[in-house]
């Protein structure tokens, strides 16, 4: 910290403390704030967490597939790539360094598959495939933890992002996800966590919703639900 910055810190802290001291004797009666109008319309709770996750994600423009095991997930992944190729949107494929992704991508029919290309090169890829560390059902959100996987740029630069979610990592709420991510010792915390809910979007021109302004235009998620039947919520 420079001397100026140190002096600024002292001055700001002093100003904060003297302002707070000055406010002590002032009686303030808060206004009773009018409750926000409208009866809540809340989901009826008949969906399982996985179904809720998929429904929320699709409501914001994501595409969701559920696979019973890794083999099925690999087939779904290949099918997605085949479709993308037919649209000239699946030629060059970038993978994160996740072992799951490596296994699933083995059967993809393409000569241009690379693991974690250099950033300047990654701009020219069509598809990025990553795993995820968690997913949040109530919002349809993917949670990417930088310490566990090299996927910060593979999930961001190519126009198509395909993400793999394991059903056992799906939590119900944002609060649940945060409590899993929090560490008592902040030094243990992941240095970069990204929440992703749908494709990149903007409405900055005449409020017209447009996807893919800076991040991916398309987001595909494959949920691998290979938990034994007993562990699955039986609403299906």
């Amino acid at each position: 910290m420079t001397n100026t910055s140190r002096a600024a810190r002292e001055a700001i802290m002093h100003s904060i403390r003297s302002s707070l001291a000055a406010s002590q004797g002032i009686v303030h009666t808060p206004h009773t704030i009018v409750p926000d109008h409208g009866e809540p319309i809340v989901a009826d709770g008949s969906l399982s967490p996985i179904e809720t996750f998929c429904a929320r994600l699709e409501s914001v423009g994501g595409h969701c597939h559920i696979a019973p095991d890794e083999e099925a997930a690999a087939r779904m992944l290949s099918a997605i790539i085949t479709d993308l190729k037919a649209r000239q949107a699946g030629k060059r494929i970038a993978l994160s360094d996740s072992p799951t992704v490596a296994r699933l991508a083995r059967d993809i029919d393409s000569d241009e598959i690379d693991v974690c290309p250099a950033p300047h090169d990654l701009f020219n890829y069509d598809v990025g495939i990553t795993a995820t560390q968690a997913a949040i059902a109530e919002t349809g959100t993917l949670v990417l933890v930088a310490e566990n996987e090299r996927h910060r740029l593979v999930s961001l630069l190519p126009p198509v992002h395909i993400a793999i979610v394991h059903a056992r990592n799906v939590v119900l709420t944002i609060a649940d996800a945060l409590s899993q991510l929090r560490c008592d010792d902040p030094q243990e915390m992941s240095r970069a966590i990204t929440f992703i809910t749908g494709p990149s979007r903007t409405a900055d021109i005449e409020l017209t919703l447009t996807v893919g302004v800076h991040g991916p235009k398309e987001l595909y998620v494959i949920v691998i639900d290979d938990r034994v039947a007993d562990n699955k919520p039986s609403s299906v």
Partner: protein
Amino acid sequence: MDHLTSETFDANARAALTDSQLRGALKNVTSLFGQRRLAAVRSVSNWEELRSEARRIKDETLLNLDKYLDEFTAKAEACGAQIHWARDAAEANEIVKTLARERQARLVVKSKSMTTEEIHLNAALEAIGVEALETDLGEYIIQLAGETPSHIIAPAIHKTRYQIADLFVEKLGIAPTDDVVMLTATARRVLRQKFAAADVGISGVNFGVAETGTILILENEGNIRLTTSLPKIHIAVMGIEKVIPRFADLAVFLKLLPRSGTGQHLTSYQSLITGTKRTTDGEGPEQLHIILLDNGRSKMLAHPTTRQSLACIRCGACLNACPVYQQIGGHAYGSVYPGPIGAVITPQLIGLKKSSQLPYASSLCGACREVCPVKIDIPELLLHLRAEIKREPAVGRQESEGVAKNRGEQLAFKFWAMVMMRPRLYEFSARVGHLLQRFIKRGERIGKVGGLLGRIAPPLAAWTSARDLRPIEAESFRQQWRRETAGRS
């Protein structure tokens, strides 16, 4: 283009009212965001509890701001972040300029940040020959046009797609098009080259978590992820009020902010950044610099009423709800912070002398207070600032002239107050008024349109020049009430 200032708010507002394109755009944005907000609010069962909880967290933070800032900086530094303190805009800009010079930076990419707008960082960087490029689509458009944001969530909402197309044709040399998808794709293409070449990325901060030293930034476009992932240095400019105590508190604000701002359950992306990467070969910047900015904020702690201003999470809901903003838009406020929250924050940041009209830019209807996710009592703040102007006429230039001239107005208000506090006298006055109003009534209105009031009574003309009155009814509400309830019970 000359930017408007808060000092000339009345004139700015009058000019805005004659801009039919602007008013059309405002109607669209405020009603759409308003409807979406309401639908999103209804998707949670405990909205009221969430608002109260958010305010409680903010109050707790503000009452212990020194402690939480200390904790935040210690934790962030332990994870490799470098903390800088800035008393005002000049100091903050100096810190950024020094960092840019050290790295011999030529190109800086910026993601949308109100705080960097507040300190006019772009101009400061350009003065030393560093290109500071806005990358949020709306911000990019208005930067190309040399304008300022008109809405804190949708900065370029005052421009049509045709104007934006003309701008892109002129500045970027594209073939003429008015297709929004094409325009957006153009911005993506142009800005990606810039992201690839940028030396420094500058962002704002939505929340800084004291217990972990984490900063959280929300967005929809992905430009914040690019800004905070690609360049070797990330500089985050953060108002000192952005700190919150616990990591778990984020859950409350992540439910409130997107719903209040754009009516989304969650924005497309949240970046949670705690210090710098652990290993040199990891992804992400090598350095994270967090600049903590005061710029008048600590003074707002000195009174419980003004302290509320620091609870604001910059969602923009009060703009969309405000009948004044809905008509005049953001530019008229002459400040980076427009709308109801701008009308209370701007005078506290730049002084009432330069913004004495802003506390009057409201009908005190309370719509802003009703939608505020952290329950800021904006009408109370407006009245507080008005009282300050009356108490110390010198702080409000315009008003001090008014006070000298308007002894008559003060007398009239005293008389009015006396009548209002005496029900019988009030009813009597209303009856007399009903009899006398026929001399000044035209059709069903009293006032400027067709009325004689302005011409007959010059002191009242100032008041009726912008307002029509409905005539006094033959039967008062109390009389109607008595009549209606007489038959029952």
